C-alpha cells in the first residue's frame, strides 16, 4: 500500500502508467468552463516549502485547488523554522492542524523520508536535497508520452539523454528510475566529475561525449548547472562546460527531426542551453509547466481520493 510518494523507485510500471493515464484524463479539465473537480473537498493539503520555489509550490497549489482541497502554504522564510524550530516540531504542528497530505520541499536529502515517520497523512516529496523529485519525473514522462507516443502507452524504445550535473540533481535521479521503469533507454551525458561514483549500478548508460549521443536521442533533457560548482573544481570554467556540454543551436541541428528538448527549469540561458534552443518548437519547457499541474493532480487524487492508492498489477 502506498501512502507516500517519496522516490520514483516507489512506483512500479503499473503505478506509473496509472498516474499518467489519470493525468491524461485530468488534462481535459483545462478546456472546460469549470476547471475544478469536487473530489478532494474537505481535505487539507499543506505545502511545506523550506526551499524557495515559487514555480513548484504554485503548481502543487493549483493542483490541490482544482481538486477542491484546502491548501495551506508554509514557507520557511520568516517562519518559526527560520527561528530554529526543528523539522520534527514543524511536523507535529502540521499533525495538530490535521493535514491529509504534506507536500515537502527541503534542502536536505532524506527530509521527506523523515517527515513520513512523523505525520499520519500522505507525504509527497517535492524535492529533497540532491535525492529525488518524483513528480518532476512524472511530468517529464507525461510530456514525453504526449509528444512522442500517445495516450495509454509506456515509453518503450524511447531514447532519452540527460545532460549535466547528475551528481547534484534530484531530477536526474528520479528520471533515471522512472523513465527506465517505463521502458525508456536512458543515457547520462556529463563530465566524469559530475557523475556519482557508483553510476554504473544505475539502470542507464553513461557517456562523456554529448555529440555522440545527440543523433540517437529522441529526448534531450538538460539539467541546470550551478556556477558554484566551478569553485569546487567540478569543471574548469563555465565557458569550457558550455562548449562541451551545452546545447546550442548548432548541436540542436544534429538531433533527429522528431526529437524534443526538455529542461526542468529554472534555466541558465547561455550556459547549459542556448536561448534559441529554449525558444524553439522542439522545446517542451512551457508545456512541462502545464503538465506539472495535471500530473500533480493525478498524484494527489490517487493518494487521497480514496482510502488508499489503488493496488496495481506491476
Amino acid at each position: 500500500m502506498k501512502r507516500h510518494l517519496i522516490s520514483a523507485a516507489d512506483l512500479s510500471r503499473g503505478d506509473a502508467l496509472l498516474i499518467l493515464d489519470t493525468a491524461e484524463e485530468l488534462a481535459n479539465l483545462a478546456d472546460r468552463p469549470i476547471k475544478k473537480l469536487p473530489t478532494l473537498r474537505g481535505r487539507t493539503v499543506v505545502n511545506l516549502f523550506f526551499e524557495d520555489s515559487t514555480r513548484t509550490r504554485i503548481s502543487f497549489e493549483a493542483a490541490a485547488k482544482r481538486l477542491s482541497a484546502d491548501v495551506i502554504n508554509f514557507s520557511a522564510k520568516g517562519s518559526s523554522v527560520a527561528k530554529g524550530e526543528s523539522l520534527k516540531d514543524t511536523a507535529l504542528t502540521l499533525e495538530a492542524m490535521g493535514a491529509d497530505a504534506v507536500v515537502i520541499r527541503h534542502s536536505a536529502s532524506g527530509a521527506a523520508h523523515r517527515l513520513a515517520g512523523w505525520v499520519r497523512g500522505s507525504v509527497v516529496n517535492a524535492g529533497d536535497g540532491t535525492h529525488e523529485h518524483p513528480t518532476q519525473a512524472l511530468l517529464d514522462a507525461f510530456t514525453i508520452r504526449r509528444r512522442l507516443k500517445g495516450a495509454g502507452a509506456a515509453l518503450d524504445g524511447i531514447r532519452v539523454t540527460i545532460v549535466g550535473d547528475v551528481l547534484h540533481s534530484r531530477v536526474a535521479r528520479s528520471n533515471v528510475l522512472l523513465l527506465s521503469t517505463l521502458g525508456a533507454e536512458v543515457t547520462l551525458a556529463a563530465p566524469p566529475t559530475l557523475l556519482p561514483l557508483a553510476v554504473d549500478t544505475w539502470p542507464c548508460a553513461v557517456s562523456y561525449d554529448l555529440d555522440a549521443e545527440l543523433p540517437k536521442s529522441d529526448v534531450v533533457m538538460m539539467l541546470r548547472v550551478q556556477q558554484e560548482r566551478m569553485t569546487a573544481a567540478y569543471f574548469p570554467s563555465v565557458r569550457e562546460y558550455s562548449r562541451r556540454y551545452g546545447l546550442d543551436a548548432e548541436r540542436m541541428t544534429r538531433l533527429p527531426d522528431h526529437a524534443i528538448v526538455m529542461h526542468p527549469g529554472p534555466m541558465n540561458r547561455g550556459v547549459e542551453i542556448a536561448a534559441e534552443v529554449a525558444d524553439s518548437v522542439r522545446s517542451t519547457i512551457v508545456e512541462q509547466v502545464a503538465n506539472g499541474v495535471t500530473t500533480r493532480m493525478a498524484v494527489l487524487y490517487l493518494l487521497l481520493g480514496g482510502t488508499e492508492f489503488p493496488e496495481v498489477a506491476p
Partner: protein
Amino acid sequence: MGATRHPIAGRDDLAVLDAEEIRRALTRIAHEILERTHGGDEVVLLGIPTRGVPLARRLAARIGEFEGLEVPCGSLDVTMHRDDLRLRPARALGRTDLPAAGVDGKIVVLVDDVLYSGRTVRAALDALTDLGRPQAVQLAVLVDRGHRELPIRADYVGKNLPTSQREVVHVLLAEVDAQDAVMISGAPS
C-alpha cells in the same frame, strides 16, 4: 421470461435477458428517444463508462439506421464526482469524451447499463453541470433493478428487474465481454 442457465465463473446464474431480448430493448429505446425528443435533433448521447458507452454507441447507430440522423455520441466519466470515493481505494478514471458540439443547449441523454441506487446518475448530473448547460437531461438504462436511494428515475428503461439487494446483476456486452446477456447471481459468498 426465458430462464436459461448460464454459468459465470463456476456459479450457476440466471440469464434474465439474452442477446435477442437486449437487441429488441435497445431498438425500442431508440424509437422512444426519437418520439420524446420530437425527432432527436438536439440529442447528445453520453454513455457512462464502462458499459454505458457501447450502449450509447449502439443507440446512436440504431437512430442513424431509422432516421438517417447522426446523433453525437460520447462518454462521461463520473468517478471524480462520486459520493463514495472514500470507502475504497482510489479508482482509475474512465474516459470523458464530449462530442465537438458540446452540451450547451442540447438534450443530453445519459446512458448506463444498470440503474440501482441512483448515485452514479447523481454524480453524472454533477459532472455534466461542470461541463455546460444542457437544455434538458434524460436517462436511458438497459436494466432498472429498483432500490433507489435518491429521487432519480429513468426516462427510458430496457427492462424492469425487481431484485433483492443481496443479488448481483451482471450486464455482459459483446464490445467488452464477448457476449450479450444480463445475468443475476445470488449474493456472493
